């Protein structure tokens, strides 16, 4: 590796909070734990949060309510080769959240991802909710209380260009 490659790869690892061999270069050793490098990482994260918030209105609001927005963006930024393009960044972030341990986070992320992709996709998206999606989205939109999960029932929502109004939703009892 040339000195330039060593420094750039090392800096990438520092910014992304990944393991880095600081013995490979004195500059990396100098900056690794520096307040300046921490500031650079913070700026990178600040922009990612800003971009995601501007595109993922409902998911970011839900994550903020749960107090995990900054953490989730940080986890995604550090573990992923994030795109400089806002469209790719936000869809990638939402896709990563579709398997989130909290079923509501997963449902809202799936819903928002389906909304972003509905114009480009010929396929339908199906999203299962543990509570009324309409009142959930309205609550996120209007910053009011979220409805509770409905024990014994679930909602099945479908989004697609071929569906009248592009969305359909039904409530079912758990078998």
């Amino acid at each position, binding site marked *: 590796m*040339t*000195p*330039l*490659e060593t*420094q*750039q*790869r090392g*800096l*990438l690892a520092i*910014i992304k909070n990944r393991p880095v061999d600081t013995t490979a*270069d*004195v*500059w990396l050793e*100098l*900056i690794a734990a*520096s*307040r*300046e*490098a921490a*500031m*650079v990482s*913070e*700026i*990178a*994260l600040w*922009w*990612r949060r*800003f971009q995601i918030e*501007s595109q993922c209105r409902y998911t970011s609001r839900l994550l903020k309510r749960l107090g995990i927005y900054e953490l989730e963006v940080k986890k995604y*930024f550090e573990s992923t*080769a*994030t*795109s*400089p*393009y806002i*469209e*790719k960044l936000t869809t990638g972030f939402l896709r990563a959240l579709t398997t989130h341990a909290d079923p509501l986070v997963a449902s809202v992320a799936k819903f928002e991802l389906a909304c972003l992709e509905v114009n*480009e996709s010929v396929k339908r998206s199906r999203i299962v909710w543990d509570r009324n999606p309409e009142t959930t989205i309205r609550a996120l939109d209007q910053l009011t209380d979220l409805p509770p999960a409905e024990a014994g029932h679930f909602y099945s929502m479908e989004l697609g260009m071929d569906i009248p109004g592009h969305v359909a939703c039904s409530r079912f009892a758990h078998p």
Partner: protein
Amino acid sequence: MVSADPQDKVKARPALATTYEGAGLDLLHRIAPLVDYLEIPPDSIARISGSREDLRPELLEAIACVAPPLKLIAHGVGLSIGSFDSWNENYLRLLDQLFGRFSLEWHSEHLAYTTVAGENLGTMIAMPRTDEALDLICERVQRLQKRYGVPFLLEHVIHLLPDARCQYTNAGFLNAITAQTGCGLILDAYNLECDRHNQGLDIPAFLDELNLEPVRELHVAGGTTHNGFHLDIHSRPTAEPTLALALDIIARSPSLSVVTYEFLKEAIPALGHDGICNELTRIRKAISQ
């Protein structure tokens, strides 16, 4: 007796430019009568459709409505000219589209890297000032000059990180690039102030050492301070000391022809349309004196 000394010529006042990142048409139509140039960042007026980035047709139409009479310059953020492995070919495709649609006076990029081994850093990092970096930058600048056939300018970026071991001073590195390639420079008055605050840059010494002949464009902006760092987030009006420094650079740079007020699209709600127009009027007045 008329002096033959070029230094005695009356220098033309610089033209005024501002950033257009695709904000609403109402703002574009308000700023258009106040400036001579629009500075277009191709990355900021692009969108992804499928797996491919393209300039947004509706924004190209909007730009076409004001150019002419406005002249256009392109100012990239995503080329990553200093990445050790390769630059961003996607950015060049966007630039090709812009050149295919408009006649650009020149185009420019930051002397920095934003991508490492294909992975985006999420921010822009200044180059180490070494012979290795110099060779890489000069080779790429020459490729850009050949590809587009209009002047190419490089802009220095702020140094948030302490310098790596280097073989050149800040000015010496820029001098070496311009001497080897003939490319132009953009100076950014606010970036210099950030470097003075964050890294102790001696601005008068920098300007004394820098060959100012290649400086074609000057950026002015206002930013913010966070955790003791001055950050180049273009979100405020230009501070008086920044404007004073800009006027000093204008007076000393024989080929400087455009002053650009930069602001981020994201800062428009805070700056306000009136605030942006007032700022352009204020800068125009300052650089016209």
